[in-house]
């Protein structure tokens, strides 16, 4: 415990006013005490600055930062397969989507609309956590401004962000997921859904998920 707290300097003045400590001459002429106080604040001027000139210099969050959730755009289309897990996991029910099928597309399923109501979103990160496709991730955007309520409902045009721009977060996720599951659950073998998380290595070959899983099985054999 700090020494200066054991015997507070003004200890006695409240119990009996007669016991009030007599001020010394220097304290009575008042100026030295003023300068002592000013010296404290003057010292702080040479300390490293803690604040940030916000609009000019912007805060660059680390990759772990949970900003606004975005959809990952991969090769010109969303990764999302509209499974609806994020909408189900969302505590404030901010996500809504409509699934549709497209047999021409190797991915087969896609959301016809995907909306996140940013007035409801609480940035908890559960959508990202449950997504089996790494299709919805938390970005670094933290200052969202709306002038109307309708503006706050983000649709696909606002949500889609190219994969390259989210590289830091995706890399972080990969490392974090590996750290999280790799040691004891071993999803690659146990769980089909999570095995597609490793598909990124071959995603550039524009194989469909089904093809990739088949290829994985072949390789495993």
């Amino acid at each position: 415990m700090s020494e200066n707290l054991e015997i507070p300097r003004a200890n006695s003045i409240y119990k009996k006013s007669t016991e009030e400590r007599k001020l010394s001459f220097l304290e009575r002429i008042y100026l030295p005490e003023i300068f002592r106080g000013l010296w404290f604040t003057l010292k702080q001027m040479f300390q490293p600055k803690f604040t940030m000139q916000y609009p000019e210099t912007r805060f660059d969050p680390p990759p772990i930062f949970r900003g606004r959730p975005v959809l990952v755009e991969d090769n010109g289309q969303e990764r999302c397969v509209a499974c609806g897990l994020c909408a189900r996991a969302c505590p404030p029910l901010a996500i809504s989507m409509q699934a549709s099928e497209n047999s021409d597309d190797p991915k087969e399923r896609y959301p016809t609309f995907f909306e996140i109501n940013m007035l409801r979103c609480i940035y908890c990160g559960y959508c990202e956590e449950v997504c089996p496709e790494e299709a919805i991730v938390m970005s670094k955007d933290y200052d969202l401004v709306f002038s109307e309520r309708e503006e706050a409902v983000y649709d696909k045009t606002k949500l889609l962000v190219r994969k390259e721009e989210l590289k830091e977060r995706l890399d972080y996720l990969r490392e974090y997921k590996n750290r999280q599951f790799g040691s004891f659950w071993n999803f690659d073998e146990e769980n089909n859904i999570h095995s597609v998380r490793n598909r990124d290595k071959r995603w550039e070959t524009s194989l469909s998920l089904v093809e990739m899983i088949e290829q994985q099985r072949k390789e495993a054999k």
Partner: protein
Amino acid sequence: MFKEKGPDVTFSQPVEEADGLKTQEMIINMGPQHPSTHGVLRVELTLDGEIVTRAVPHIGYLHRCFEKHCEAMNEYPKVIPYVDRMDYVAAMNNEHGFAIAMEQLMEIELNDRVEHIRVIMAELQRIASHLLAVGTFGLDIGAFTPFLYCFSEREKILDIFEKASGARLLYNYIWIGGLMNDVPDDFKTDVSSFVKTFRPKIKELNDLLSNNKIFLVRTANVGVLPEKVAINYGISGPSLRGSGVKWDLRRDDPYSIYDRFEFDVVVGKGEVGTLGDCWDRYIVRVREMEESLKIIEQALESMPDEGDVHESIPKKIRPPAGEIYSRTETPRGELGYYVISDKSTSPYRVKARAPSFVNLSVLPAISVGAMIADMVAIIGSIDIVLGEVDR
């Protein structure tokens, strides 16, 4: 119908003084938009001149149906982000409390690494919360400088939290059965360097504020909360300890791994005035920060490097039918969660015993007879967070 208790709700009749002037009691509203009520608290004050004769706190402006909302969630983990939003300046402690309640209900055992990280996080959060409480208490009374230094220190803690959890205020970090993710590799060095730099800052704070004569005059002998009154009202946390009652759940009903650490329970001693005045409640918070530092240091030393933070997280959280009441010590006092499970994936009922709510109930008892300017000091010293009062 609910009938408001208290002496003399109606206006008193004008009293004619000797010199022919008529005086009358006046009712004045403090808040809900008052900067020193720490949120949207409205206190209805009946004043006789400048003396408060009656103070009635009106709450509910921030009511968000937390308890009902929990029942609407279809999964237990979804409750955790809302638990954060109860006491939003001490979110880690809230999560910790809820996680412990659920783990007791489901009989989950945690590994040492998780427990240590949780304790370090909870204690860091306690320091951050006390810094905010102390800083704004000074600010309410008119000391602006210490507030800024408190905030810069709090910022360092938030940086540590941000590195670990990805959020600065509402973390969603402590999950049922584990943690959201492991701490970064440089967590230990970060925390120990913070501990090292923070100790001298407490001394600085004492020089600036605790022993400041103006501050002493404003807080000593003001808002005296006697020991018996505090116990009768069910006050907990630093406000109770400020009245000289040695009661700390970390010591008296150890949860998590607090029984492994050595620390003192700080109590007020009435050093500058009466036991249980505003200064005592304030100084308990300042000294508690040092105790938290002690716990953090011990926890850092014994924290194992190995251990999976996801080891005990169940794949599906479906507790057996039953009920549990578990209590933890948050920076504001005893936070209890009463959870009833009906064997489904969502809680049947969640009741939170919020310390701020209970602590606020003593306000009418201790503010009678105070000057109107002292109301700010009294409200600041019991350190309420309106998010938790209203839930």
